[in-house]
């Protein structure tokens, strides 16, 4: 029982991270129709910055967080402005390849600036120690962070659905021509979507890095967001959150009851099965090809 609970809660924690990342990727996808494969780098950069500045005591935690998130947000917006806007006429996978290029650039830049370190990030305000629940022991920090990511994901998803700004963003993603005729500045919204997506990834990276280690392999965490998106539905914001949770919990159970080597394989096999059986995912929209 205790093992089950640990897996479940751990799964929620992981799922929260995935939900944030998936939310960001879906936002970007609705804006430009392409997936961002540089999301892992968006996750890693703020975490690295915080780790480096914490270690060298160069700046306070708050400043590091803000600077880190601001930089990735700017990179996301710049990527949209400079590259994706020009790529509008091209098939969708060109945007994917462009994001590969961005990932390569960011990888190289981070390698030069930071090297290949391992950091442990500490947030002083967080509760520490151990919590006992139903016979299992949980780290208070990870519980707090789990709650935080989940709440944040819920807020963002809810904000997109219920606020005026959110509705504009959704409209712009769904039908840009109609939206722009309704007075919505579609370009600015797309740019903002990419910036927001990058920031969400950064937050997810920081949250994940606080409970684990910050090292270059963090980028592969973002890869799990793709199955999450597919399960939830490529263009569905709620689906991203739900998908993220499902994948997180699934992975936690695989790690506990099977073999941690199997995590990636089974996650992606699950994605493959869903893709073939339900290409639109749980909440996505069906696409029909007409001649």
């Amino acid at each position, binding site marked *: 029982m205790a093992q089950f609970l640990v897996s479940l809660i751990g799964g929620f924690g992981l799922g929260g991270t995935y939900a944030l990342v998936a939310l960001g990727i879906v936002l970007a996808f609705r804006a430009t129709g*392409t*997936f961002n*494969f540089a999301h892992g780098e968006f996750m890693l950069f703020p975490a690295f910055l915080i780790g480096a500045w914490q270690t060298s005591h160069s700046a306070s935690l708050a400043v590091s967080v803000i600077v880190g998130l601001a930089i990735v947000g700017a990179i996301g917006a710049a990527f949209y402005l*400079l*590259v994706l806007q*020009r*790529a509008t006429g*091209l*098939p*969708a*996978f*060109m945007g*994917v*390849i*462009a994001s*590969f*290029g*961005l*990932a*390569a*650039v*960011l*990888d*190289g*830049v981070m*390698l*030069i600036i930071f090297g290949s370190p391992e950091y442990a990030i500490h947030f002083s305000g967080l509760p520490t120690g151990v919590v006992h629940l139903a016979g299992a022991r949980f780290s208070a920090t990870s519980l707090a962070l789990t709650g935080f990511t989940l709440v944040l994901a819920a807020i963002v998803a809810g904000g997109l659905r219920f606020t005026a700004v959110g509705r504009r963003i959704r409209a712009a993603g769904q039908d840009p021509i109609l939206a722009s005729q309704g007075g919505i500045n579609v370009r600015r919204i797309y740019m903002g979507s990419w910036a927001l997506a990058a920031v969400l990834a950064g937050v997810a990276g920081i949250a994940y890095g606080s409970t684990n280690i910050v090292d270059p392999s963090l980028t592969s965490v973002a*890869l799990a967001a*793709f199955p999450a998106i*597919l399960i939830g539905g*490529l263009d569905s914001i709620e689906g991203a959150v739900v998908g993220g949770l499902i994948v997180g919990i699934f992975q936690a159970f695989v790690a506990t009851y099977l073999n941690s*080597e*199997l995590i*990636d*394989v089974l*996650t*992606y*096999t699950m*994605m*493959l099965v869903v*893709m*073939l059986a339900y*290409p639109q995912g749980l909440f996505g929209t069906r696409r029909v*090809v007409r*001649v």
Partner: protein
Amino acid sequence: MPARELSTPAGLSEADARTSLTRRPLRLARRLRPRAAWYGVGAMAVITAYFTLGNSAFSLFTLNSCLLAIFGAVALNLLMGTAGLVSIGNSAFLAVGAFAAVFAVRSGIPFPGDVAFGGVLAGLVGMVIGLPAVRLRGLHLALATLAGFFIITYFTNEYQSNARGGGTGGFSVAPLFGSAGLTGQQKDWAWFLFVLVAILVLGATRIAHERSGRAWRMIRDHETVAHTLGIAVTRYKMIAFALSSAVIGVEGGLALHLSGTVTTDQFTLQLAITYIAMVLIGGLDSVAGAVIGAVLVTALPAIVPNLVTGLIGAQSATSDGSAIAEIIYGLLVMVFIMSSPRGIVGLLHALTRVSATQRVTGQLGQWRRKTLGGPIQSGDGGGSTGLESQ
């Protein structure tokens, strides 16, 4: 005026006819195409000779790495550029080829049988990956190949961990041509690889055109319509997957024998992205582009440290060399997507078109007098080009 009406083909205006003339010189390149592959092979022979006559083991090793990379780039170009099937898990097939070769060697099949075995196995695995892929397109297909990547690397990892003599250090085999000494070994490899690459380039050029090329491009651009032309779409997609995976598998087996070792750590997603960058930078849907891109991206980490040291004189350039190279080709990818999605080859085509137009504009006066005066000739007969008017 009746004379004017007779002079242009039905339904076309004079402006259209003029445009058609300025486009004609570009098509000279098209006629040369099958022979262009031979010119490319000749150029590669010259380059190989140049390096083998020198004595730098390092340059030779770079050359050999480039030649190897050409395999993967040409294969990926056929799959992505010509057939339009996005595959981001391609480095997994390198793993299949390499590990299958290891297995073959241990089972008593020496070189070159083990490489062939690796290629065949990789091709089969490629077909298995291709099965779900034929039903998917675009982003879904890319993700499916990513899934394939994870599944394949899981199995190669298992093989490495569990096979006798394996473990995290991977496997070693005796490097080929080892008896000739370090430089001599690289020289032997260079010519050996050159011959293989030449065969590959010639074969790839041939199937990328004519009937199969048209079929793949129709599948790429208008898949639904391809059916109505009698193209067996599923079969062509499977062939594209099988062929490209097999060639990549052969590359994996050859690389095993060149370097002598293999571990699963080598076969990352970053590596797969590197090959995609090669194909894009060189130019999608172009065998020449694949060759150019492969050489460029592979040689970058070798050239960059010297370049940077020369430019800023920084000593740390050598250690950051691969990072800088990564930044450069990442930037190149983005730049090309922004401006010239058909890569370097596309740039070259655009440049030749510009100069051809300038050349021909001067001839426009002659052309007007010739064609507006009398009845229209039907086309330009037998495939010759407008350059004859000079």
